[in-house]
Structures are given as structure tokens and as C-alpha cells.
């Protein structure tokens, strides 16, 4: 039986995987930074403390996306 190819993907499917891996951290960073801005707008006097805490949180969330980037190189194709 002939197989009809309707669509073909060239390149590496790992790029799609990385795209998926970036969705969660993207949402997380959005919520995290948005809430910090909200807090800063409500109480400008604690903004330096909020900013420090935000960067600590950002570091934890960001590493998820970066693990996605690294995984592509570690796991052989």
C-alpha cells in the first residue's frame, strides 16, 4: 500500500519538546512578575524587598525552562 505523505517535519523534534518545556515556566514567570508588580504598586515602600524575593522565585522557575534546554543536549537523538 502506498503511503501518502501529507506533511513532513525536517530538523529535530526536540525543538518542539523545548517549546513545550517553556510553556510552564512562561506561565509561572508571568504570574510571579505580575503579582510582584501588583504588590509594588500597592505598597511602593516594600518594593526593594519584593524585588529581591521575586528574583529568587524567578531563579527557581527559570531553571525549569533551562533544564528543558539542557535535556536536549544530554539525551541523545
Amino acid at each position: 500500500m502506498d503511503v501518502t505523505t501529507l506533511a513532513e517535519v525536517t530538523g529535530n523534534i526536540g525543538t518542539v519538546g523545548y517549546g513545550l518545556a517553556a510553556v510552564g515556566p512562561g506561565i509561572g514567570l508571568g504570574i510571579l512578575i505580575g503579582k510582584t508588580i501588583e504588590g509594588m504598586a500597592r505598597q511602593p515602600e516594600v518594593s526593594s524587598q519584593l524585588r529581591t524575593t521575586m528574583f529568587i522565585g524567578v531563579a527557581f522557575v527559570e531553571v525549569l525552562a533551562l533544564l528543558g534546554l539542557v535535556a536536549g543536549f544530554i539525551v541523545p537523538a
Partner: protein
Amino acid sequence: MTARSDGVPPLQWSASGPYDLRETPLSTPAIPLLLAAEGDGEFHAPTVADFFPPAIFFEGTPFEFNRIMLVRFIAAAVLLTVFVIAARRAKVVPGRFQNVIEMILDFVRNSIAVEVLGEKNGRKYFPLLATIFCTVLVMNLTGVTPFLNIAGTSVIGLPIVLALWTYVMYLGAGVKAHGVGGFLKNSLLPPGVPAPLYVLLVPIEFLQVFILRPATLAIRLMANMVAGHLMLAICFAATSFFLFDASGGMKLFGAGTFVAGSAFFFFEIFVAALQAYVFAILTAVYLNLSVEAEH
């Protein structure tokens, strides 16, 4: 890749180094398009091989010395020279040069050490945090320095050394403050949780404290620098390809990629400073979690 049934020959190109461009996870559909569009000129897309340059000397030994090691040595020499000069010429009324150095150290002490650790512990651990901040900052900035062009931290070795230092310091600080048993109880048994849940929590906390913290410190720094280098390299490689090898209207794309590359250049300077800040502040946070009073 096999030959396609419609008679189009498979794309042929060579990627230098042990990695084939088609197999790297960062190869996208755009790369074959760019490569197919090329005439005689080659489009040199950046690959992982960028981070494994050929050895300069001591090839094959554990002391293999390549371009990235050279960059690290240059960065370390610059860092040492700057601080030795600053320390030798330290005056009560600082000049412009001393002012900049003092601003950096002041930032580490006030915004990182004292803010997270408090006055007493902040001053105690300030030398550690300042060393980590300045080292990471300088090693990151080599990635955007013309002619060096690669960050000293973009290969895992240096981040691992720094992360291990942090690891030993925060374990040591915890043991010193609470004793081995007290430290383990502090970090593995979070208070205010019903006892049965500890079956779940203890392994998670163990993984977190003893493996994930140092591992993520190292990976975060390295992956940021790798991603930054690849973004910069692909923008400027595309600019060079569009301007010199592409024909006619395609040359216009070169302007776009050049603007994008320049924007990423400034973004990379920001990322270099941000990663130095994040590494130092996480070190401070981990130290604080270890030494802070029992709950």
C-alpha cells in the same frame, strides 16, 4: 535523511566538529531553508561544537587547554589585576576607579549579603558572596567581549566548581550552627506538617537540599550562557550570510538580523549581571536556610 521520492536530493552540508547540525536539538526548520538558499557561500550556523574548540596544547590529557580555558585565564587575570590595583591605591576619598569598585562591593554587601542574611551573618559571609558575584560577573561578561566572544561559564566545569563551593559552605554552616542531627532535622523535617506526610516530604527535601540545589545552581548559569552565545552567534552568522552570500532582496534580511543581534548583545550584558546576582543571592538564601534559628 533518505532521498525523497520527488527527486529532490537530500540536503548536504558539513558541520565541523563531533556534532552534526541536523542532530542538535536547536536545529530548526529554518536552518535547512537557509542552507538550501545558499549559493557558494556557506551558512555557518552555530553548533554545540562551539563550546568544544580544538585544544591549544596538552591535547588528550586532563589538562587539555583550549580557547575557553584561555578566555577564563584572561578573565581571572583581569579580575585579579583590577582588584589588586584597587586595593593598593585605596584612599579615604575614592577616585572614580575606586568608586566603581566600591559600588560593586557595596551592592553585594547591602543588597545581597545583609538583606538576605542579616547584619551579623551578612558581614561574615560577605567575602564568599563578593568573590562569587565578581567571578561570575567577569566570566559571564567575556561572552560579550569582542575577540573573546565566549563566556568562561558556558562550559559546565566552572559553574560546577562555584556550585560545589556554595554546597560545601552551606552544609558546613548548617552543621556548625545546629550540629549534624540538628541540621538534618531542620532541613529534612519541615515543621507544622502531619506526621504521615513525612514519608513523602523527607525524600523530596533530601533531594532538594543535597542534589537539586547545587545542580540547579550550576545548570542555570551554564544554560543561560550557552543559550545567550547561540542566540548571538545565530543572529550574526545570519547577518554575515545575508549580506555577503545572499542575492538581491535577500540582503535586506541582513539588516533585520543585525538589529536583532545588537539587541541580544545588550540583553546579554543584562543577563550576565543578572546571573551573577542570582547566583550570589541564591548562595545567600541557601546559607540563610542553613543557619537560621530552628523553627
